[in-house]
């Protein structure tokens, strides 16, 4: 089944300059009880975003009028903790297409790629500069070009290349799906089973 393609995105950003944001903050465990993938955006960052009566907390960035956009810019080690793919679904469902940070937890990174949410890993200095610029001017835009693996602060700010494995990049650019691929090698999988039984 083809997945949504991703090529280039130009958007404003939402800054979250906190380190080690774990998946329990992105989507608390008590909201993992759905049996479908939809609707998790409602509870994205639930306990930072709302007080216990459900009233939005004014000082949290998602409730601020200053910032909006499809790119979340977060402090280092984003997505640590649980393997819940619900964290990536919640970010995507809320409307983010990209998360930029100076590094990501491994499982979150693969979950994001499998969900079509692009994790863009930038240098510490690029991240610090981006936070600084966003602090003074919330309207600045960032361009992410997947084909050329390039992230740029528009119009003439710094730019930087980012890493992504070639297989995953092709999947995203062309809308290819992992399971279609795995189903296509079933004969090889059966051969492996015959060969490897001990």
């Amino acid at each position, binding site marked *: 089944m083809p997945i949504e393609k991703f090529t280039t995105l130009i958007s404003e950003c939402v800054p979250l300059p906190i380190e080690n944001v774990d998946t329990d*903050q992105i989507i608390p*465990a008590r909201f993992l009880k759905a049996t479908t993938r939809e609707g998790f955006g409602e509870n994205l960052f639930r306990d930072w975003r709302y007080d216990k009566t459900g009233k939005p907390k004014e000082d949290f960035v998602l409730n601020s009028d200053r910032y909006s956009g499809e790119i979340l810019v977060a402090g280092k080690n984003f997505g640590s903790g649980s393997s819940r793919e619900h964290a990536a679904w919640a970010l995507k469902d809320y409307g983010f297409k990209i998360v930029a940070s100076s590094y990501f937890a491994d499982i979150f990174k693969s979950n994001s790629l499998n969900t079509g949410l692009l994790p863009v890993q930038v240098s510490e200095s690029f991240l610090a500069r981006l936070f600084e610029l966003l602090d003074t001017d919330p309207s600045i835009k960032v361009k992410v070009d997947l084909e050329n693996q390039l992230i740029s602060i528009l119009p003439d700010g710094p730019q930087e290349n980012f890493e992504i494995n070639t297989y995953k990049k092709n999947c995203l650019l062309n809308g290819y799906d992992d399971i279609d691929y795995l189903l296509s090698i079933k004969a090889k999988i059966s051969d492996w089973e015959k060969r490897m039984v001990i």
Partner: protein
Amino acid sequence: MDSKTIFDKIWDRHIVVNIPEGPSALYIDRHFIHEVTSPQAFGGLKERGISVFRPEKTVATPDHNVPTINQHLTIHEELSRVQVDKLTENCRDHNITLYGLNNPFNGIVHVIGPELGITQPGMTIVCGDSHTSTHGAFGSVAFGIGTSEVEMVLASQCVLQSKPKKMRINIDGDLQRGVASKDIILYIISQISTGGATGYFVEYAGSAIRSLSMESRMTICNMSIEMGARGGLIAPDEVTFEYIKGREFAPKGEQWDQKLEFWKSLPSDPDAAFDKELFFRAGDIEPMITYGTNPGMGTGISGKIPSLQEIDNASRNSFNKSLEYMGFSPGEAMEGKKVDYVFVGSCTNGRIEDLRIFASFVKGKRKADNLTVWIVPGSRQVERQAEKEGIRKILEEAGFEMRQPGCSACLAMNEDKIPEGKYAVSTSNRNFEGRQGPGARTMLASPLTAAATAITGRVTDPRTFL
């Protein structure tokens, strides 16, 4: 032939296809599933109109949001009940073995795999749960996956994975009295931080590791993910083989001999290369406790919370935010801090050895009046064993009660939630904000430290009693 680490030996033999400049299709020997991260994967199969490729290689158990009292009744909370029912339905439709709520083999997925002998050396093991690294204690390559990957395994018995880098962590020497495997792993994480092993698969080695029981080794491997590692493992040895022998699904007879020969070939070659190697001295480790909101924010129990000057400029905001949540100040001592709840359980410390340690400490003493204490066995088998050994009786005489198995207050998906603002000393694995309930404040520790704390009602160094 090239020298290989145990990780290389297992990983390489499970590669079905290497995609050029991409990941490998890695064959999975055992797949565990639970109610929370599997429904959407089965949903995906249904949309594609395909069935499970190798149903006999998947085992299911509900654990994350089951109640820990009255399990014989219908689950009271509707959304939890729907998820557990969905797991039952999916297993029935796809011929997958399910150890449901009242089954004698039910329990936390990472407790039942090893105790049933399903987990064995040399295997690749995955589950939609980050603490799958627990199974690495047997010398298997075990790691947590997301739901899309659960769907991959159900569809093809493979996952697409890039090979991580390799790290060896050596802990040599003798442990101090009162120091347990939980303290070893909390110490390592406090030294290298919560992201210190991101991108790596860890092998734990050294004389201190070799001296540990299987259950203690599981506690160490369990928390590999808390320093960002893809997984963690320990080479199998006589302790491992002795533990597996005779268990429900362990190999028997001639098959046992064949497997044993294979298992003995697994340990890393003496000159195998690692991308990174760390060394720690067991004697430096004291009972540990966390003060912050990630497992790397820990200290020896006689120590203090770092002062602001000890924290990098760039990290100070996050550090302050964390302490503010905990209601602590920089530079404070941890010993003697107020506690409201003690939780003993989870895939980290919910096995029989943990209950034995707790029970032998509290035997003949009394629970502190100011505390609520939840003792939750990791499985039905652990519960039965505790009964048989008289542990339940010891606990009850000291004023404690033992509940029924499940993940419980480790992640508070069921009713076992620590109330807002309350302090818990917990034997689980994560002290994240809200992890044990909205507003709950968690301090991670070993079962022995939890026991000492449960008796005094304050954060207590267990060594003062020894």
